[in-house]
């Protein structure tokens, strides 16, 4: 899996205008390609609005949406297809999300400073030394327990606006943090619960589709758990919580998880998966 290392914060100092039609700004971040395993690294130039942008006609977007939907249904492990589905169907919702972020002071900061969650930008030692119950420590525990990494994020390719592409990318990065905040594991049930939350929060069609079709892959006991306790809890919290994309998570690692939940108006999960894991379930 290849990954970019953004070595410097984006030099987007010129933030005077707030027009919705921003002209493409030349990127000033340094991107080092460390491992050229993936196909998209073959082409060293880019002629879209951002690195990795592929310009597509509406017809192609429609085809992509249908094709990626079919493949994602058949093979849920094709995360790149889920990502493509999200990008090709989420344009209007992304605009809505971006506006919500702009209207929130912290969200506006996120949009301006464009933080990216990458293994290279995380100070893992510092996070590991944080007290238990702090957001950063719990996030690290989540990464270790589920053996995931923040770098396995698919790139944004088909969004035709540079800022909206960042919003999409931020949504993907925040997904893991959602798992931590909601206390959900990365098994199918946990993923569906997070999808329900995200569908209620963001309204992204891809989330809604995942929320509708994900349960088809659950066994009866888990379905029961979903419909009786987890599901309603996830939906309720999705609707009432503050916009999760507007939080500058990178500055809140040492904040207590409980406090962060209170601030975001997220109630703790009805089922504690961590205890179950400890009991060897």
């Amino acid at each position, binding site marked *: 899996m290849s990954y970019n290392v953004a070595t410097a914060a984006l030099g987007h100092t010129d933030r005077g205008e707030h027009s919705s039609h921003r002209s493409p700004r030349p990127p000033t971040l340094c991107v080092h390609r460390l491992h050229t395993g993936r*196909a*998209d690294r073959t082409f060293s130039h880019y002629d879209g609005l951002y690195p990795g942008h*592929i310009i597509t*006609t509406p*017809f192609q977007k429609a*085809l992509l949406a249908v094709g*990626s939907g079919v493949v994602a249904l058949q093979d849920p492990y094709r995360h790149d297809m889920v990502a493509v589905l999200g990008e090709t169907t989420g344009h209007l919702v992304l605009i809505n999300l971006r506006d919500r972020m702009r209207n929130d002071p912290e969200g506006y900061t996120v949009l301006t400073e464009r933080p990216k969650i990458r293994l290279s930008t995380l100070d893992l030692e510092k996070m590991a030394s944080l007290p238990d119950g702090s957001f950063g420590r719990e996030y690290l525990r989540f990464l270790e327990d589920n053996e995931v990494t923040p770098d396995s994020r698919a790139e944004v390719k088909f969004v035709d606006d540079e800022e909206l592409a960042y919003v999409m990318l931020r949504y993907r990065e925040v997904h893991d943090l959602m798992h931590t905040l909601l206390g959900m594991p990365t098994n199918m049930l946990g993923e569906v619960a997070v999808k329900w939350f995200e569908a209620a929060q963001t309204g992204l069609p891809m989330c809604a589709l995942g929320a509708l079709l994900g349960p088809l892959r659950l066994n009866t006991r888990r379905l029961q758990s979903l419909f009786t306790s987890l599901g309603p809890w996830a939906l309720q919290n999705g609707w009432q919580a503050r916009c999760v994309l507007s939080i500058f998570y990178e500055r809140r690692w040492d904040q207590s998880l409980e406090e962060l939940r209170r601030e975001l108006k997220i109630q703790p999960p009805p089922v504690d998966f961590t205890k179950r894991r400890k009991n060897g379930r």
Partner: protein
Amino acid sequence: MAASMRLLVRQLARLSHRKVTSTVSGVSCRSACCWRTSSGRCFSDAAEDRSTHFGFETVSEAEKAKRVYKVFENVAQKYDVMNDAMSLGIHRLWKDVLLHVMHPQPGARLLDVAGGTGDIAVRFLDYVRYQLERQKRRDTPSGQGSSWQDISDDRRRESSAVVCDINKEMLKMGKQKADRMGVVSGLSWVVGDAEELPFDDDQFDIYTIAFGIRNVTRMDQALQEALRVLKPGGRFMCLEFSKVTNPVLARLYDAYSFQVIPVLGEVIAGDWKSYQYLVESIRKFPNQQEFKGMMEDAGFYCVQHHDLTGGVVALHSGFKL
């Protein structure tokens, strides 16, 4: 005589330029200056100065070879699936037509360059084995077993196919496929560059290159190498995407190529850009007449071309005399 001298000089140059010529750019500069042993940079400098096309982009020749290699390394896993999806299975018919026009006889030696996943070579072996079976059935009345004479005749008429490709990933996929199909004997897999083939002169009866020559950086060199390794009387056959003359079909084909194929690439193989390159490279390839001219310039005789599927694919054939 001249051929063996050329071979000796080339081998000496190869020894001294081992590091440079073993790069995937594989440019073999034929001007006299490049036989210098003092500086190994001659090859790569020349290749970096000349520019060529990579799809609709302009790049240096050295750059093109590297990027083409990467493209095929990326697509190798899903190459066959994508071929079926993009051409709706018609590529199998094109390859069958190639074999029928070729009509190889038992005992023929085939070199399939840019053979990748081995489609042509496997078809070739099936075809000659079928021909051999038919001949044996015709010649031998039923009930009789094979005599020693028959067995030694068979040995002499044993055909072989060599699949040569610059890309190890494609060869790996091809070998796995052939093993799965049970086609093993008579088939060999060689890593090699079409512009500088690792074979002696006058070795093969038939040289094929199917949907590969448009990816070669210096096509004229590939044609010269083809002429070199063929036996006198040997046949060069090339299948390649070409110009569609019918304007209605051309519009449909363009629309399909540029709108649908990269989407298929993204959905099936997770790789939009490689397939974008593939459809662009088709547009940059010379048309039927131009390619015929290039073959004649290289020294082939009786050059002919047949259009398949309205010109979407052209089959070019020429002889070394």
